[in-house]
């Protein structure tokens, strides 16, 4: 018997293979993607390491000095002589620290909401695509109906219903989780649709039939065989959804129905800041707003780039 020559005589390291992959190459040659990643990383890093980076914990009343209220950026305070890079708000909190902590909350809610939407959407999508028939039709009709309503409306609705069920004393404690579920529920449809479509394609491929011939369990086939092959588009949607979820959270918090006041997010900060705009204290609004914009934009750009990079037809 003759052996075909091995295609690659020596194994390159895993790290080198990643660096050498088409995706990594596409990334290296896309300035927009690199810039967006840098911006996103700086903001995310700031949020994650907020307790170490921030000069104060803005939500610990013991650290606050009301005398510092309304200090403009880069100007020493008339009474205390303290200087704040981005100024201080009405209660004398350092804006930079406030933003770092606010971003932390925003990102946490956004990421958890996307994770929730992803898990729900992937499970529904895999199941609908695999079963087909009326199960699929029913699930997808539900998805269609939900898609007809604006996401914010659905989040508001879920939020309202949840409030009615949760006892008062737990309300603040659970508010964040309710928010996460509300945003997640408004967003799972996209994941479900994409995963369902991809599953319908994959399940007819011969590698899935090969697994069925040996009687592999359907759940195993769905999660071990099909899922890894549909993760590409899922990641793209996840990234774009993260930007949307952060904005949705900000919107809800801006409307006053989001996170509890003890744990303000960027949206809360914007709501607070907005009331001082007329009296001329612009920095209390501007810096949180810019942060939100930069975060949402960079993550969204990254998602867009990822979508194009993974689409072979555009390459």
């Amino acid at each position: 018997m003759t052996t075909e020559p091995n295609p690659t005589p020596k194994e390159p390291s895993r790290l080198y293979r990643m660096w050498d992959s088409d995706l990594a190459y596409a990334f290296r040659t896309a300035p927009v993607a690199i810039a967006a990643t840098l911006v996103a990383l700086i903001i995310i890093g700031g949020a994650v390491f907020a307790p170490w980076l921030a000069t104060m914990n803005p939500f610990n009343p013991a650290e606050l000095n009301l005398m510092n209220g309304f200090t403009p950026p880069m100007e020493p305070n008339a009474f205390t002589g303290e200087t704040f890079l981005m100024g201080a708000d009405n209660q004398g909190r350092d804006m930079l620290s406030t933003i770092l902590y606010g971003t932390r909350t925003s990102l946490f809610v956004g990421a958890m909401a996307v994770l929730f939407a992803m898990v729900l959407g992937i499970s529904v999508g895999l199941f609908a695509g695999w079963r087909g028939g009326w199960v699929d039709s029913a699930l997808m009709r539900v998805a269609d109906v939900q898609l007809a309503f604006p996401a914010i409306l659905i989040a508001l609705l879920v939020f309202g219903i949840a409030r009615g069920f949760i006892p008062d004393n737990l309300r603040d404690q659970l508010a964040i989780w309710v928010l996460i579920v509300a945003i997640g529920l408004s967003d799972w449809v996209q994941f479900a649709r994409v995963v369902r479509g991809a599953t319908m394609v994959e399940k007819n491929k011969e590698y899935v039939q090969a697994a069925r011939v040996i009687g592999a369990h359907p759940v195993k086939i769905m999660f071990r065989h099909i899922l890894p092959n549909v993760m590409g588009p899922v990641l793209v949607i996840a990234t774009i959804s993260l930007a949307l979820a952060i904005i949705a959270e900000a919107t809800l918090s801006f409307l006053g129905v989001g996170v509890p006041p003890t744990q303000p997010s960027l949206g809360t900060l914007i709501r607070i800041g907005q009331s001082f705009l007329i009296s001329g204290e612009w920095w209390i609004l501007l810096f949180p707003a810019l942060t939100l914009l930069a975060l949402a934009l960079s993550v969204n750009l990254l998602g867009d780039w990822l979508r194009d990079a993974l689409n072979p037809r555009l390459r």
Partner: protein
Amino acid sequence: MAEPLLSVRDLVVEFPTRRGILRALDRVSFDIMPGEVLGMVGESGAGKSITGAAIIGLIEPPGRIASGEIRLKGQRIDNITPEAMRKIRGKRIGMVFQDPLTSLNPLYTVAQQLIETIRTHIDCSEAEARKRAVALLDRVGIPAAARRIDDYPHHFSGGMRQRVVIALALCAEPELVIADEPTTALDVSVQSQIIEVLKDICAERGAAVMLITHDMGVIAETADRVAVLYAGRMAEVGPVREVITEAMHPYTAGLMSSIPTLTQESDRLVQIPGAMPRLNAIPTGCAFNPRCAKAFGPCTVERPELIAQEGGRQVACWLYDEAKRREVPHV
């Protein structure tokens, strides 16, 4: 010897990629005589379709013709403007592709497409063009052509569509038809009908055919001469009968004996070890040398060029270079 209709000399087609330049065709040369059927065979990825695309100026960018020349009746067509090329396509060179649906516009009736093509290339009235179109459809074997001509392509079956495509390729009376795997997507019983039609109608009109396929059986029955491509290079060119029955190039010989036939008796098929190299890993010297049982000294060092042999044959193999063989006497 008469002037060739199409003459390809040292054609090089390259695709720049980030891992370097891929040479899909490496100094390919061949001629097609007027009225002749030239079969182009080779394994998947050998460069058959790229050769056809280069001739009609349809290589997808960033791919490009890096060097060499293509002449149609002595006139260069590889460096002319896209405008001029478009005039040649359809008028002087007709095309038939594997999937008939890609060559037909689903939004127009067959009549509309045929009449438009006829009138862009031939100066005649609408009624006149229609008459020609019906005659042509009739000729390619569409029953009740006068009635069916007003149908849309999706009303036809696969085989019928391919007949329509052949009619479309021939309606401007081209001198050359390039047919890229015209029957691969069709059933065996329909395949032979299509090949028959293509061959007869081209012969009738004196059009030469470049028939691209990986099916040696089709080539054997249809072509006058055959060109064998391997890894983007020409391995052997010659009259069909000779190449099939007494191949000179070790690759061609191996290929021919690895095909099971309806008459052979042996239990095992002859097999060539290994597979054709990918474009980014073509060995130095003769591209076939790692798989060749007869490889010797020069094979891994220097690339063999096509050497003319008796009977209008050409072969690119050091075994047929007397000087090289003398240098290495033990083979």
